[in-house]
């Protein structure tokens, strides 16, 4: 062991106590905020319980109930729709935007700050702002579309567009991913491009054969981070779908198009007081997240390139 050569070696017992003492807040936090809740949530998922009644064991009833719950499937479908449309588009916009930012521009810190700005805006305020921008009659989005004679959807009130509105709002905060890609682009050795240029490779082939493989480890990591974020989306659809007439927390957009998985989970747990069912939903979300993540990690060996020089 390396410790044997260290000059000021302490007895292992003392070192252990010290290490534990410094780490003790998180050890408590891990037990109270993670370990116990995970076990409890697993147990709750097999029970019928709410704030007002103690857990009663019901076996797999909550999981069986999901099979026949149309709203559950709708919320799962919506969330997968947000994710499988949102994540690729998010990655594509980020890579394109990072290229635009990576052109030896004057005032680069300013441009970087501007694209990141939406990411620090409170999601509730951003949701309100976009309700206004997407307003079919008075909003600027449709106004700009009309300049180009593009058909103008009724974003927030048409069941076919509600989900897309959620994705648009989420994509407004793409700046963080874009800045990560900008850092990745700066790390690609310029010699590679010079060599490719000598070989007569055009911009498209340079991207395909140099940039894309060189940034693929970043892509893998970002796909997973974004995937987790999109699968858990709550605030954006929750704010976009709030019905100003009713003012209740149970509005879910036209034709339930903005009912995300987390919103339905929240409604079950805190509005309908079906906490056992909500816990079962949380476990399904964990398993779905894990399954998709593992699938992507498994596929990674086919498309992620690790530079081992």
């Amino acid at each position, binding site marked *: 062991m390396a*410790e044997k050569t260290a000059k*000021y070696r302490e007895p292992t017992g003392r070192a*252990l106590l*010290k*290490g534990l003492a*410094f*780490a003790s*807040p*998180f*050890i408590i936090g*891990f037990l*109270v*905020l*993670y370990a*116990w809740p*995970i076990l*409890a*949530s697993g147990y*709750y998922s097999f029970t019928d319980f709410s*704030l007002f009644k103690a857990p009663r064991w019901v076996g797999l009833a909550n999981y069986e109930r999901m099979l026949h719950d149309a709203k559950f499937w709708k919320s799962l479908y919506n969330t997968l729709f947000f994710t499988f449309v949102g994540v690729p588009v998010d990655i594509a916009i980020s890579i394109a935007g990072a290229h635009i*930012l990576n052109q030896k*521009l004057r005032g680069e*810190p300013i*441009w*970087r*700050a*501007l694209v*990141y700005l*939406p990411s*620090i*805006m*409170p*999601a*509730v*305020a951003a949701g309100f*702002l*976009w309700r*206004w*921008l997407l307003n079919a009659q008075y909003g*600027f989005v449709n*106004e700009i579309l009309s300049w180009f004679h593009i058909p103008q959807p009724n974003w927030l009130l048409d069941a076919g567009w509600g989900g897309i509105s959620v994705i648009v709002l989420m994509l407004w905060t793409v700046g*963080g*991913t874009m*800045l*990560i890609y900008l850092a990745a682009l700066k790390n690609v050795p310029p010699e590679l491009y010079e060599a490719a240029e000598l070989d007569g490779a055009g911009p498209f082939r340079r991207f395909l054969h140099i940039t894309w493989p060189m940034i693929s480890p970043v892509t893998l990591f970002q796909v997973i981070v974004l995937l987790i974020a999109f*699968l*858990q989306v709550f*605030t954006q659809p929750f*704010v976009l779908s*709030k019905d100003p007439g009713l*003012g209740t927390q149970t509005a879910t957009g036209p034709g339930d198009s903005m009912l995300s998985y987390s919103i339905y989970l929240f409604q079950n*747990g*805190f509005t309908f007081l079906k906490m056992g069912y*909500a*816990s079962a*939903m*949380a476990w399904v*979300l*964990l398993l779905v*997240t894990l399954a998709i993540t593992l699938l992507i990690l498994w596929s990674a060996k086919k498309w992620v390139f690790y530079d081992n020089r």
Partner: protein
Amino acid sequence: MTTVDVTQAVARVRVPVGGRFGWLMTVYRYALVVLLAAVFVFPFVVMLMTAFKASNEIFTAPPQLLPHTWTLEHFFAALVEIPFWRFLLNTIVISGLSVLGTVLVSPLIAYSLSKLRWRGRNLLFIMVLATMMLPPQVTLIPIYMMWNRVGLTGTILPLIVPAFLGTPFFIFLIRQFLLSVPDELIEAAKVDGASEFRIYWSVVLPIARPALITSAVFQFVWAWTDFLYPLIYLNDEDSYTLSVGLYSFLGQHGVQWGPLMAACVMFTLPALLIFLLFQRYFIGGIATGALK
């Protein structure tokens, strides 16, 4: 040296390929970046302009960007119609205490995970990483039940105590930073006979300043903008944060876009100021990839 400089200068002059039309490329590059920035910034401009417009100008089709008459009436209306100051104070208290918890506690754990050698350290680090990956929905209900059992739902404690137990993201961030600090600095203090906590407090923490500031500013913005947890735990209007307060007020008086946009401007401004002041720490945090 001078000759090298000259050749480099010559090379630099010749860099804008495209010859006589090089300036056109420059225009193109800046046009692209302006267009890109506009997509992100334009919504902010709409928010500001709507907040400063007279009420009768807000609903026009097609929409007009600039106000004819500039007015502060919506800002005053927002302050009067919703308990804005109350919500603001609550948000400041919760964000401030969360930041305090984060800078006091997360570096302790990060130090233990990077500079102290003890059996079980790797296991603890794996635990930190695992908790970063866990969807919060899984722990949401049991943690709520726990706070409910001790009768503390409705207080701000459920929102701030987690920061005092160490936040996995910030533990990770500060640990990565401390790993790059040479051990010699710490060893030297040990030779002088300083206690472990003294070394931590007067040697390690000052060195870790950049990582602490990054953690603090991210924690501030997260707490400032958080919605789900305050929504669940705060059930009395007097304790609402701005997120929950503004959400619950939408629609109680119909949608009044002027005051609503004015309130959103005032809600966003503090986070914006922190971002502008500590910009390089944000960008540094993003570059580590752990935060977004």
